[in-house]
């Protein structure tokens, strides 16, 4: 292993880890330990995933029949809006960076903590406050605008839009703080010998994500604040009736919300990069290709927002420019996909749960990415805009990409975080359930969209019913897989076999310290002499 290896101390010495050093509830709620904050975020974002999932199941259930199944149209509108808001802002944006990023970044840098531990705790409470305000709004009447809050409808809707918008604004503060913290941590807390190009690629992914968080989130916050004030006091800044321009909202909204897609997918790619190396026992095919592609996506991602607006009235030139720039993102994504596949070549592939999710990610992300290129061409987009084709496309990227990677990360680092193993058989069953459920749910939506089924509609012509039924049944399989995962992971916390320091035999820095790690991560600051995952070195892997 490239880092100076401290021999794992005997069992008695590792008895105090970050988990059992203090066990009072107060010590958890007021902790400044990045590992505990990571665990808090993991619990909170998992709860958000469950809640957003319940709304998704209800929406799919309603769509089982062409007309009203069991809820009225207004309730349906509220439910799909809450599904979107919860999944985007309470789960996907914070899940991987705030939970796994927090836990792993200092470990991977050989640091004792992040640069600003108290701010880190503040970030968690901003998240909680934002979640409470959003959910308070949901109980007070919900929002029915969809997660995009387009005016002029958003300034007139009778629903409780203001708390939802303010909640998202507060969540933005949480994201910004986390982003600043991670950038500064990466710059200043690297241990001796850990040059930029020796950092684990997950760190690069988190770093690129943090840059987007810091640059894009404030713009979104401001935009949503304007809509909130508009809704509450009739400011009318986007209201065409008194001289405003609703298209301007779309520009500013997507200036954030398109990069936000990369906030969701870049950390996922970072996880996937770690998992493919660990479970094929091979160093990444090209380290630099992944780094350059991550930064390239972070940069180009800021120049593609217009592809959401091809049908909003945009000049031919602008549409062509935004379309080509959007396709450019696919070049960087393809570099990553080919690098991962090349890493598999002649590796010793181990098919544990994280690796199954890697293959799931690869398959779904590729389909999602390629349909994205198709959508970026203006002529096709006019046909598919605001149809189920788009819904299927972004679910392939976001659920197929981010959620698969979230599950991969959970299964890969679970032993690191809690020092326990989970039952392999159940994890394989769950992975198959989630993957096949996903394909069954979202593949029919490509056909639905191409046939003309618009997104967000409450009712549809009877000839679409067969595909909708297939899609709804698929959603139950995903739910079953996730409930199963929750059950065996929670069970393993108590009854799982002790994992030992490095159960997967991985040659990456974070496994050099005991699992679960002691409070200050490393007994002595490690000195790094090479990159991570160098299995070809003597003693690489264990």
């Amino acid at each position, binding site marked *: 292993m490239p880092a100076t290896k401290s021999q794992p101390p005997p069992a008695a010495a590792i008895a105090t880890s970050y988990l059992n050093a203090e066990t009072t509830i107060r010590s958890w709620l007021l902790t400044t330990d990045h590992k505990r904050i990571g665990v808090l975020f993991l619990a909170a974002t998992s709860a958000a995933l469950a809640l957003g999932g319940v709304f998704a199941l209800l929406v799919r259930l309603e769509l089982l029949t062409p007309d009203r199944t069991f809820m009225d149209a207004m309730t349906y509108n509220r439910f799909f809006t809450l599904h979107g808001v919860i999944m985007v802002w309470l789960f996907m944006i914070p899940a991987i960076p705030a939970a796994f990023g927090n836990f792993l970044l200092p470990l991977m840098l050989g640091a004792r903590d992040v640069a600003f531990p108290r701010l880190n705790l503040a970030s968690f409470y901003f998240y909680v406050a934002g979640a409470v305000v959003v959910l308070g709004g949901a109980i007070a009447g919900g929002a029915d605008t969809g997660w995009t809050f387009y005016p002029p409808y958003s300034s007139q809707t009778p629903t409780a839009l203001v708390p939802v918008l303010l909640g998202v604004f507060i969540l933005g503060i949480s994201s910004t703080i986390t982003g*600043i913290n991670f*950038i500064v941590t990466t710059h200043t807390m690297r241990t001796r010998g850990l040059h930029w190009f020796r950092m684990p690629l997950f760190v690069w992914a988190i770093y690129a994500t943090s840059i987007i968080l*810091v640059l894009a989130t404030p*713009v979104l916050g401001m935009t949503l604040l304007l809509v909130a004030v508009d809704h509450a006091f*009739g400011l009318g800044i986007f209201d065409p009736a008194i*001289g405003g321009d609703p298209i*301007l909202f779309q520009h500013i909204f997507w200036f954030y919300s398109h990069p936000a897609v990369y906030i969701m997918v870049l950390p996922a790619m970072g996880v996937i990069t770690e998992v493919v190396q660990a479970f094929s026992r091979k160093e990444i095919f090209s380290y630099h290709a992944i780094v350059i592609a991550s930064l390239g996506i972070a940069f180009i991602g800021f120049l593609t927002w217009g592809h959401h607006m091809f049908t909003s009235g945009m000049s031919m030139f602008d549409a062509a420019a935004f379309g080509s720039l959007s396709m450019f993102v696919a070049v960087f994504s393809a570099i990553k996909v080919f690098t991962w596949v090349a890493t598999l070549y002649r590796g010793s592939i181990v098919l544990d749960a994280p690796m199954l999710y890697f293959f799931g990610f690869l398959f779904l992300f590729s389909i999602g990415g390629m349909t994205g290129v198709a959508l970026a061409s203006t002529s096709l987009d006019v046909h598919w805009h605001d149809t189920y084709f788009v819904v299927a496309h972004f679910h392939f990227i976001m659920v197929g990409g981010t959620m698969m990677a979230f599950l991969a990360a959970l299964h890969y680092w679970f032993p690191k975080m809690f020092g326990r193993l989970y039952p392999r058989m159940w994890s394989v069953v769950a992975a198959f359930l989630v993957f096949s459920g996903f394909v069954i749910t979202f593949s029919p939506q490509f056909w639905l969209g191409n046939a003309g089924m618009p997104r967000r509609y409450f009712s549809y012509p009877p000839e679409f019913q067969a595909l909708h039924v297939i899609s709804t049944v698929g959603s139950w399989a995903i739910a079953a897989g996730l409930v199963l995962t929750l059950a065996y992971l929670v069970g393993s916390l108590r009854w799982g076999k002790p994992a030992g320091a490095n159960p997967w035999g991985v040659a990456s820095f974070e496994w050099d310290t005991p699992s679960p790690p002691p409070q200050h991560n490393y007994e002595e600051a490690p000195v790094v002499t090479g990159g991570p995952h160098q299995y070809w070195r003597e003693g690489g892997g264990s």
Partner: protein
Amino acid sequence: MKTDALQAHYEDLGKQTHAARLGMWIFVGSEALLFSALFTLYAAYRVAYPGTFGEAAGHTDLLLGSIMTFVLITSSYAVVAGLDAARRGRTGRVAPLLAAAMALGLAFLVLKGVEYTIHFRDGIFPGRFYRFEAFPTDGARIFFTLYYFMTGLHALHVAGGLVLLGALAWLARQGRFDAVYHTPLELGGLYWHFVDVIWIFLWPLFYLLR
């Protein structure tokens, strides 16, 4: 050196200061982007209503706006003088200079309130409530909506900055800063200057570009 300034997870004070400085600069950058959304709106609407914006700027009080600019920049000078005093080890001067900066910041807010009151008397309200008889157009309405939103958000930042300066003045009175350790003073000052810089952009946009 104040040994208690070093936190447990840093190797030395140099690294810690570097981290704090970098963090503050990135924070200021993200704050700039918060305002950038509004500057973008201003630019877009100025293009959409070419003549109107210039004419509407003629209805704000140039003299009052310029006095406010002077007051705010002077307060920034007081903060710099405080930091300089700390660097030279004249720690007794820090708290009074910060108090002077706070007084000027407060004066800025009072003047802003006076200006709002004058506008309200003319019927210049934001958005739907706009009823300025001398200039009843949609472009002027949007100009003044942006005016209230941007100067209002700026005023909130000034208020936040005043709280920050108050905390720093209190710490300075406790003798927490000296020639070696004065990072909070430097970074708090940075934030105050940033609030200044935003005003330096607002001043031409709403008062000078007639």
